[in-house]
């Protein structure tokens, strides 16, 4: 007997939890500020309507459809859609491979947020007033250098262990008893914490009387004042499409797995849209009101430009802790800021763990205990190179192949498979089965033509712009190349291993028949 969700709100919170991640609060504001400010929202909403929402509905419908055949992961779901094709199930391997690879590095990054939350309360970075010193603090925490803050990886590893074990415990308790319970508590708490931090930032006023223009209104203006000339640049449109892609957790395979635990008559249209809107609330309303405006009022119009171009992680782990030193009750606000990021992280990472576990449960008929044990041991071993070779570019390598390229490839395959191979008429009926609301008919055209074309353009752009330079290791230092090669060998072996497991599972199934 397969597991099911306890309530409709439960799966909405779980999918929204999977979608709301660190990127909502760190990546989105940086992308918007660097790509036309308010004008960025035009390609952003266009991408949401033509790419994000259709993909969300496709994945929910595909997952529920596969669940009806007792398949919770892409190999089985793709095979159910196109039984005559012997190879399509191997394409589905991406839907287990991608989330597993992301889980390997994401859990470690997530553990930094937990660590920083505790260190904020303990006052470990108290008194650090400049970003350079805070950068040293972060580097020492990550084990990239030794200084008077940290002399080794001990604290980071300790918080990694806690984070990893917390993830395993949640998935061990299953869909209803673990993931749904976690998300039903963590998501409302995340919004409360987000609104508290947002409220504090928006009431900062003019913290530096000597610089009256460094105020919160201009801080919001830095992010929202539109630069319409940006709309003429293709890279801005692709940045917006990429942001929609990353923020909604589509193209990974996790929504397929979550939706596979729905019952046949459960709605996917309204639930999918509600998960989208919940994610967008966290991203566009809360995410835009914290890091950029706060950094502006303390570092001014010149400083903020350097900060925004230094990347989302620096903003979260370097700039924000410095800002918290400059406001009253900074330790408290620092702790809840990083706790907010931790909650965003853990609700995403448990979703990344579930496809591999579901694959072992569904295709090998393993008990949840056995499946979680195998997943826990394997992923714990896989995490170690990310932790110990962080400075060698291993994390970035896994992030591109697992967390970027595979996403676009997987989304393209599943969309074409569903709307062309399975057929748009059947796909439309499948999406609307048990629906609580009707989708406008224009989406038949969008799903069949616009979304796949959009995806192919993104896939081509990422391959040419990022994929080829990464593949050729153009920006990699000679000393780091062996580590990058090692990471690639690992990725290839992992993919091959999963493909072999798919072959064995189908062979066993055939034997039983």
């Amino acid at each position, binding site marked *: 007997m397969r597991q099911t969700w306890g309530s409709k709100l439960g799966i909405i919170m779980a999918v929204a939890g999977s979608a709301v991640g660190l990127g909502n609060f760190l990546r989105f504001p940086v992308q918007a500020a660097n790509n036309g400010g308010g004008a960025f929202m035009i390609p952003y909403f266009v991408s949401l309507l033509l790419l994000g929402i259709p993909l969300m509905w496709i994945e929910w419908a595909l997952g529920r459809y596969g669940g009806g055949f007792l398949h919770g992961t892409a190999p089985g779901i793709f095979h159910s859609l196109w039984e005559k094709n012997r190879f399509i199930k191997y394409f589905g391997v991406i839907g287990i491979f991608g989330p597993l690879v992301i889980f390997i590095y994401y859990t470690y990054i997530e553990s930094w947020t937990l660590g920083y939350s505790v260190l904020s309360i303990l006052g470990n970075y108290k008194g650090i007033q400049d970003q350079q010193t805070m950068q040293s603090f972060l580097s020492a925490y990550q084990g990239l250098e030794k200084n008077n803050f940290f002399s080794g990886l001990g604290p980071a590893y300790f918080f990694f262990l806690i984070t990893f074990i917390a993830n395993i415990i949640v998935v061990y308790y299953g869909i209803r008893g673990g993931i749904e319970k976690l998300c039903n508590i963590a998501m409302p708490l995340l919004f409360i914490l987000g609104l508290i931090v947002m409220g504090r930032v928006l009431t900062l006023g003019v913290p530096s009387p000597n610089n009256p223009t460094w105020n919160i209104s201009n801080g919001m203006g830095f992010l*929202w*004042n*539109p630069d319409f000339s940006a709309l003429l640049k293709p890279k801005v449109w692709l940045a917006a499409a990429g942001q929609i892609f990353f923020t909604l957790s589509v193209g990974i395979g996790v929504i397929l797995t979550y939706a596979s635990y729905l019952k046949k008559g459960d709605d996917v249209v309204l639930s999918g849209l*509600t998960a989208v*809107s*919940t994610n967008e609330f966290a991203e566009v309303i809360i995410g835009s009101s914290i890091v950029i405006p706060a950094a502006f009022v303390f570092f001014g119009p010149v400083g903020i430009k350097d900060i925004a171009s230094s990347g989302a992680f620096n903003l979260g782990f370097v700039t924000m802790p410095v800002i918290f030193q400059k406001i009253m009750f900074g330790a408290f606000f620092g702790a809840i800021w990083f706790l907010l990021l931790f909650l965003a992280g853990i609700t995403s990472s448990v979703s990344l763990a579930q496809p591999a576990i579901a694959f072992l449960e569904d295709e090998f008929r393993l008990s949840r205990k056995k499946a979680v044990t195998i997943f826990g041991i394997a992923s714990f071993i896989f995490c170690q190179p990310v932790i110990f070779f962080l400075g060698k570019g291993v994390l970035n390598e896994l992030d591109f192949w697992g967390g970027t390229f595979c996403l676009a490839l997987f989304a393209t395959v599943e969309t074409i498979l569903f709307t062309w191979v399975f057929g748009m008429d059947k796909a439309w009926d499948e999406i609307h089965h048990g*629906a609580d*609301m009707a989708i406008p008919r224009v989406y038949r055209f969008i799903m069949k033509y616009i979304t796949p074309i959009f995806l192919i353009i993104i896939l081509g752009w990422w391959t040419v712009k990022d994929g080829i330079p990464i593949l050729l290791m153009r920006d990699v230092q000679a000393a780091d190349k062996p580590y990058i090669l090692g990471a690639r060998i690992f990725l290839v072996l992992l993919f091959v291993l999963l493909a072999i497991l798919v072959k064995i599972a189908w062979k066993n199934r055939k034997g039983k028949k």
Partner: protein
Amino acid sequence: MNTGGIIFVGLSWGTIAILTAFCFYKVFRKKKVN
């Protein structure tokens, strides 16, 4: 923040707030159309 910024923040936040409220209203109302 200039007028353009105010318009964009207002439209973006307003659209998302209304969509979120509409979705949750429908979720709790539980009326099937199909």
